[in-house]
Structure formats: C-alpha cells, structure tokens
C-alpha cells in the first residue's frame, strides 16, 4: 500500500508491503527498498530492526496523528492516502484571509479585550486565558476585523474550542 506521511511539515511517499512471516515488511522508496522487522513488545511498545539498526518505539494514535516516541524525541506523523488526498486538497480554500483563534489547552477565559466589529492589529492582545495557574494572553494572528467572539470571561474552554474569528 502506498502512503504519504507528513513529518515536521515534510512529505514522504513510500510503499509498504507485509511479508509472509507477519513480522517482516518491505518498504520501497523510488528505486530503493528496505526490509524491516517489526514486533509488538506489549502495550504500545514496538521494536523495529532495519538491517542491524535497532529502534524502540512507543506508538499512539492521538487525534489525526500517529505519535511515535523514540530515544531522540517524539515524532508526530500524519498519514495520507494519496488517492483520497487529491479530492480533499482544496477544503481550506474558502477560508483564505480568515483566522480562527482556538484554545491551545483547556482553561478558563479571564478577560476578553475585543468585541465583534472591532478592528485589531496583528499581535494585539485579544483575550486572556488562565490554564494551570498561569495567565496567557492570546494575540491576534493577523490584522483584520473581529467577526465573532465565541466566549465570555469566566467561561471554561476545552482544547481546540473556537474562541474568536478575525477576518
């Protein structure tokens, strides 16, 4: 099966094929191929050998990403089935010029400094959210007009909740 993986904003395209013994996989990238051996150790732990190179991973699906923890850090990989990707490529086209400010973490809105119709400069303070005992001021990502304020002071928000729309 062909995959396109996005890691750190870079696309990698390759074919993956499971070999007969169940643990072996063949990976093809252009003219190159690698034989890899993958074993589940228990829970979310996997051991992978590529030739003699040994890799130890904790693998978890988090939202749209596959999160892989290894000795040198955490990689967040998004996988795309290229046959479907073409169809969905322009979903965001209609949102050009529109900025949605979303909560980066769960917390409580402490202060809202703008209302619908206000003009804001890029970088201007828009609202203050308290999370884990720290107040964080969220700033306008671009200059524009506030289209809608979705929250009020005192309100609790979840991660990714829409807070303010600027256009």
């Amino acid at each position: 099966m062909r995959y396109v993986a996005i890691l750190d904003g870079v696309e990698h395209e390759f074919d993956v094929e499971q070999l007969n013994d169940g643990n072996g996989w063949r990976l093809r990238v252009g003219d190159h191929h690698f034989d890899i051996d993958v074993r589940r150790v228990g829970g979310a732990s996997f051991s992978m050998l590529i030739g003699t190179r040994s890799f130890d991973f904790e693998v978890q699906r988090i939202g749209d990403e596959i999160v892989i923890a290894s000795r040198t850090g955490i990689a967040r990989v998004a996988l795309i089935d290229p046959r479907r990707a073409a169809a969905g490529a322009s979903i965001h086209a209609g949102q050009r010029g529109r900025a949605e400010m979303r909560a980066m973490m769960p917390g409580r809105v402490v202060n809202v400094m703008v209302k619908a119709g206000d003009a804001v400069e890029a970088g201007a303070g828009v609202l203050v959210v308290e999370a884990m005992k720290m107040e964080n001021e969220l700033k306008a990502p671009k200059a524009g007009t506030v289209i809608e304020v979705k929250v009020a002071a005192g309100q609790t928000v979840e991660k990714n909740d829409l807070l303010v729309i600027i256009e």
Partner: protein
Amino acid sequence: MFKRILVANRGEIAVRVIRACRDLGIETTAVFSDADRTALHVREADHAVAVGPPPAAESYLQIEKIIAAARATGAEAIHPGYGFFSENAGFARAVAAAGLVFIGPPPEAIEAMGDKVASRQLMASAGVPVVPGSPDVLTDEAAVRAIAREIGFPIMLKASAGGGGKGMREIHREDEIASALRAVVGEAKSSFGDSRFYVEKFLRQPHHVEVQIIADTRGHTVHLFERECSIQRRHQKVVEESPSPFITPMLRKAMGEVAVRAAKAVGYVNAGTIEFLVDADRNFYFLEMNTRIQVEHPITELVTGVDLVKEQIRIAAGEPLSFTQRDLSQRGAAIECRIYAEDPVNGFAPAPGRIDSMRIPTGPGVRVDTGVQSGAEVPIYYDPMIAKLAIWGRDRAEAIARTRRALDEFAIVGELRTNIELHRWLMNHPRFIAGDYDNQFLENEYHPAARTDADPMRLAATLMAAVAAHRNHADTARDGDRPPARASAWKTAARLELMRR
C-alpha cells in the same frame, strides 16, 4: 515519633512525602480532589479522604476539610509539601489549634518571610545584602512609576505574597507598567488571595542561586550548600544543579554563613531555602526565603546524602538534627530536570491530558520523582509539573552524560506534551556543558528548531507509523484537511542510506 501523617498536597511531592513516611515506618493519609481520585498519591497512601471539587480553592485549600480528614483518620501531623498551604501561616496556626503538628516552620517565621517587603527590611537589618527597590509595599501605578524613575528601568514588579515564579513581571519601559500591574494583581489575587505588590531593581543576567538550610527545635541551624537555579523560563525554574558551576568555594562558604544568619534572624525551624541573586561580579543579594521544602530538594539530597523530608519530619517530632555542619559535604554533582506537561514549541503553553504510556528511566545515577503513571490524566487545575528527573554523577560531566541517557529512556506518550526535548537540547548545548549560563540563558537561546529529517530515528518513526497504520487495516490514513507540506526529502536516496549505517 508520629504514627500517621496527613499529606496536604498532591502530585510528586505528595508521593515524595509518603515515601519518607514509609521509610520512617509512619502511615499516611492522602487527601484528594474529585480530579485526583486515582492519582498516584492516593494509591500510595494508606488512607485517602476526598476533600472536594477539582479547583484547589474548593478542595486542597479548604482548611477545615483538611483538618477534618486528619482527625477522621487519626493523623497526628500534617505535611504541606510545597505550594498550597506550605507558606500559609493561617493554616499552620489552624493545624496547631486543632492539636495537630504542622511539619514546617513556626507561623511567625512564615509571616516574616512571606511578606516580601517586610522580609527585605528584616534581612537588611540583619546585615543580609538585599536588591535595591521600593522600601515598602506600593498601592498604585503612580507609585510604581515614581520608584522606577528613582532606580531606573528595567524593574521587577512583584506580588508581596508571591513566590514560585507566580505574580511577577519584568518591566523595561514605562508604557508596560499598566498591563504588567494588571497581570501581577490578578495572579496575586487568585493564587495568594493578596494583591499587594512592590518593585525591585531588575538585575541584568544574574544567577539565581539558593542555599538550603535546616534548623531543629534545639537551636541548631546548618546549611546544605547551594543549588544553581538559573535555567528558567517565565521565572519558573526548569533545571537546577548542585554544586553551582558559577560559585567559588569562598563564595559558597560566605553564602552558606549568610543563609544561616538569615534563618536565625527569623527564629527559623525546619527546612527552608534562602534565594539569592548573584551578579556577574559575584555580588550576592537576598531575594526571598522559601519557608518550605523546595521542588529541587532532591539534588541537595543526592550530593549531601541527607534525606531532607525525613529530617523535616524528625524535627517536627522534636528530634535534634541527625548531623552537624561539619558532617556535611558535597559529593559529586547532581542535576534536576523538571518535566512539565507543556509545549516548548508553542510558547511553553500548558499541554495537559491523558498519559497513555510512560516509561521511567532507571539505572546508575537515576532518580525519578513523579505523581503520575501510565493511564493517568494530568488535570488542568494544577501545576503542570508531572515528574522530576534527578541525576547524580561523580562529577558534573558524568551527571550531564547520565542526564542525557535518562532523558533518552524517558518516554511519555499521550494527549499531553512535555518539555523533554527542551531538556535534551539543553544537555547538548555547549554553553550549558561549559557551565556558562545565567538566568536569561533559556529565553535568549532556546528557539525550538525544526527537526532535521535526516535523523534516522525520525525516518524510522515514519515507517513505524505506516506499519502501525497497516496493522490496523489502514484505517488510520486520513484524507484531505492537511496543511501544505514541503516535498519529500526522501527522494534524496542518500538520506535513506543513513538508516543502514
């Protein structure tokens, strides 16, 4: 000695105190909010009592509920940990009034050091050097402007009741005063219930060095040397080490003696920390005293061999210190990395959530203190620190190498994000390795870089994702709705060959 102690805290410090109790053969009572029913401190304690809804003000900060929990479970003493009630004289008095023992300093010492302005005045009169600033608390913006004009920018605006990096802002220009004041007053009110503030001269690029002291009820006060705490972001410590690579033996001795003098000046009993700012010329100034056990106490334990929490409990039970100043020495070097549930790449924003799997490093020189485990939920209501990695080495170079190794073994996977990569970056930074840093280092130097995809481990991780997806019948492939990506770096076959090396 006590038969049972209530631990009025949560997270890693509650677990740490429970361990000290178990070492002493003392049973424990945990308290927990509704968000912490399955937290590690509840599971490790012998007894556990629910004290209210998730917000700390409605549970962990309810004096009556905590004392009632102690009575209901027959606890004779209360250890406050750090944060919460640890520097609250009112709580200490309420504990005593209930016929229980508060494991910490006398309420008068908490009060004397808790008010940052009064303590500055007291320390100055005891001959302890202090940073120039407002001689008294200020009440309005105009007063801040006035003192700023007098001592000059930059200044630090600080909550009088503050501590632990909360309720403080640095101000470089007059037009920043208003918003800084609003933030400080807001945080001070919500965190400490006291919105008073004052101003200090902001020293450029100083070192933050603190001295651990401990005193018993028999009049013995000793110091346990220094901790270097200059690796900070937003005035929160991130990495500490002991000994400080910046401190000379002479300076160490002088600071230790001043710290003991400062503690004696307030009739201090139990464990405490005198925080100093040390400027580039190695002048040192009293900053504040923390009248409790510190987050970073393990590195002092590693180099001195003393169990500070056990010693706190013994002192509260009326026992004399189990050592004298002459018994103490620093052996080797220790480093602590605070693991926060936060996203360094995203402005250090808190990033709590579920921990699906957590692998804790072990082996030579490695100590981990944590309040979470696989399956735990890091709640949004409390401090984002989830673990402390404390490493000992025969010398600083060995400690750094072991810290690197332990960070590599530390795997935390789940909804949350952590700052482990920041620590990896730091342990490989030439200036940190050389011991050449001050308290601006992290903010000036740390720019989360885009990872190079030439790292074979990350290429392999991408393959792992594909195999994992394939194993699950390819149902993990997502379609559309993706940010624009650069073209494949793998088309350069040379990079792939990295994996064969």
